[in-house]
């Protein structure tokens, strides 16, 4: 009787699961906005402010403030660089005490606990890069309700859970850059695979969604073979990339690395499989991690923005918000040495266009 019940329920569970599975590309299901196939610059539509508002924040104009930065995880080069940018801005501003602390795995449960505890410790401002846009929002809204200024960078939360979000580069711009470079290197009808972070990480999901629509529009013969998740873990990214190479053999001509950990790991996998030059590796990565592969001509182009500038801009924006110089309805903000940054999409602040590192310029950068 017990055995039959167990068997029945196990089959039921599996049936439910299989019935609701679908091929997954890794993208989210929000509307996409592909750019033109040529080099026409995008038009940016104006939108009313849709960010959150802190409840009764104290007057912080000109006063010293305590800020904590909680990135997706600590201990990887990318967030070390953003942390450096934040520290740089804090030093320049002179009246900010900034600290970076976060989980050692890209785990939303722990990130939420960190933010929760810092709210209790009485910080004035929180900077964050979210592991999950929905899961992080309740604790950020709690921070807003306590009068804490909340600014995000790199990976967004839901708009009303933070005041501003520093968008490093428009999502469709990054998608265009990645796909155009891949089509140039691997060919218009190449089979490509994607190594991404986790299922719901907001920025990766957005990029992949934009990449799919842009490729369908401008490079329709590109075939997307598979998307695998590697959770910003070096070993996992390497083994996932190797599995892709072994699984698809000659069919895979290009691998997209969607995180700064996945791209060097995929390049390493391609190098160790002896397929340098036969499989193109294009992705987002810090220049230091990619220098050996670019020098060997294994990787021709690396797309990124400057994460130090990203951290710097985030800190400047938080200070401007705390001081009240940046308010809902502002169209631009002065961000120290970066000059005036534009406000787009209601409550996002644009850092700039994506930057492509190639063999010619990668040695000029050190992060």
């Amino acid at each position, binding site marked *: 009787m017990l055995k039959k019940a167990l068997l029945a329920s196990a089959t039921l569970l599996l049936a439910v699961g299989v019935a609701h599975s679908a091929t997954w590309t890794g993208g989210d299901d929000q509307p996409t906005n592909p750019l033109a196939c040529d080099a026409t610059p995008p038009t940016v539509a104006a939108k009313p402010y849709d960010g959150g508002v802190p409840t009764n924040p104290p007057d912080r104009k000109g006063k010293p403030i305590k800020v904590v930065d909680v990135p997706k995880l600590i201990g990887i080069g990318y967030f070390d660089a953003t942390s450096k940018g934040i520290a740089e801005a804090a030093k320049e501003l002179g009246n900010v005490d900034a600290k970076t602390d976060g989980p050692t795995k890209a785990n*939303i*449960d722990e990130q939420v606990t960190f933010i929760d*505890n810092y709210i209790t410790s009485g910080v004035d401002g929180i900077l964050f890069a979210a592991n999950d846009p929905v*899961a992080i929002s309740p604790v950020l809204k709690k921070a807003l309700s306590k009068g804490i200024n909340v600014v995000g960078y790199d990976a967004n939360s839901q708009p009303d859970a933070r005041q501003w979000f520093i968008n490093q580069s428009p999502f469709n711009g990054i998608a265009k850059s990645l796909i155009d470079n891949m089509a140039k290197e691997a060919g218009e009808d190449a089979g490509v695979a994607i190594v991404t972070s*986790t*299922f*719901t990480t907001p920025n990766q999901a957005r990029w992949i969604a934009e990449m799919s629509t842009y490729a369908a529009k401008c490079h329709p013969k590109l075939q997307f073979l598979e998307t695998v998740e590697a959770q910003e873990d070096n070993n996992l990214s390497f083994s996932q990339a190797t599995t892709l190479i072994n699984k698809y053999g000659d069919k895979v001509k290009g691998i997209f690395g969607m995180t700064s950990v996945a791209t060097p790991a995929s390049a390493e996998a391609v190098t160790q499989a002896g397929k340098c030059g036969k499989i193109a590796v294009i992705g987002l990565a810090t220049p230091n991690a990619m220098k050996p592969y670019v020098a060997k001509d294994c990787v021709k182009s690396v797309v990124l923005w400057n994460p130090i500038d990203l951290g710097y801009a985030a800190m400047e924006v938080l200070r401007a918000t705390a001081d009240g110089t940046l308010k809902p309805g502002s169209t631009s903000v002065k961000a120290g040495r970066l000059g005036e940054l534009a406000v787009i999409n209601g409550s996002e602040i644009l850092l700039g266009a994506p930057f492509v590192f190639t063999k010619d310029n990668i040695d000029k950068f050190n992060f």
Partner: protein
Amino acid sequence: MTKNLLVRHETILAALLALALVVLTTQSSHFFTVENLLNQCRLMAEMGIVGLGMTFIIVTGGIDLSVGSILGLVAILLGVFWKNVGLPLPVAIVLAIASGSLAGLFNGFIITRFNVPPLIATLATLALYRGLAEGISESHSVRGYPDWFYVLGQGDVWGIPTQLWVFLALAIVAIFILGVTPFGRGIYAIGSNAVAARFSGISVKRSLLSIYAASGFLASIAGVIFVSRVSTTRSDMGTGLELDVITAVVLGGTSIFGGRGTIVGTLLGLILMQALKSGLLLAGVKGDGTIMAIGLMLIGSVIVSNLFRMNTDG
């Protein structure tokens, strides 16, 4: 008799807890406030609920490594039953909890019917259930639950977080079952000597089946509370939960070899761990320092408790 009471592991632990609370309060004025304490209780509730079941299991000399994966699986199933299958949310919750209990029952089944050591069996189901969760979710996180659902994880009832009420109720039931009922005494007997227990007429297989199923049931409840607290479901929820829970249970004085341990000890261990995590962060220690402190505390408490036991054993 009084000497026995004084040198029990639980008493030493309580003294350590009091000491830690005093030290941490001096380090930060934000620590010992009602708001912070209630908030920490809210964060601790999920681990606590799972810890109740884990205490029973470790007292029998077994272990359950799959609780984190069951939590993740239940979280995903909740989303699937509600959004994809379209059932009303209360029905989805009940079904999800039932599935989690079945998962626990399956653990018990493998352990009792096929005599697989609990460590191996639950290590295997840790991977199995996590894989099922990821496969079923296929990347989609479910969001947009109705507001009444969030009261469970984010709301208060009479000023106390909702999940704390649930935890306290379950804890009282657990203390009663383990400490007072014949079933509870049977659990200790199984942990001390399973063969002798069987020959004394205790139904060992039935008891083990029930506690592993109970562990699955409690992990499911924790899963529902978790989803309510972060307002979304993801397949990687609960990763690493089992290690935190086992640390709390062992810190509380339950012997990993079985036969000894109380729910009260587990509660003290939990509170001590959570107090350390909160207090150290407020005092300015970063994440890595806190993990080291918990590890040292665990080693220290086991050594001290063993020293006292060596002196009192005849």
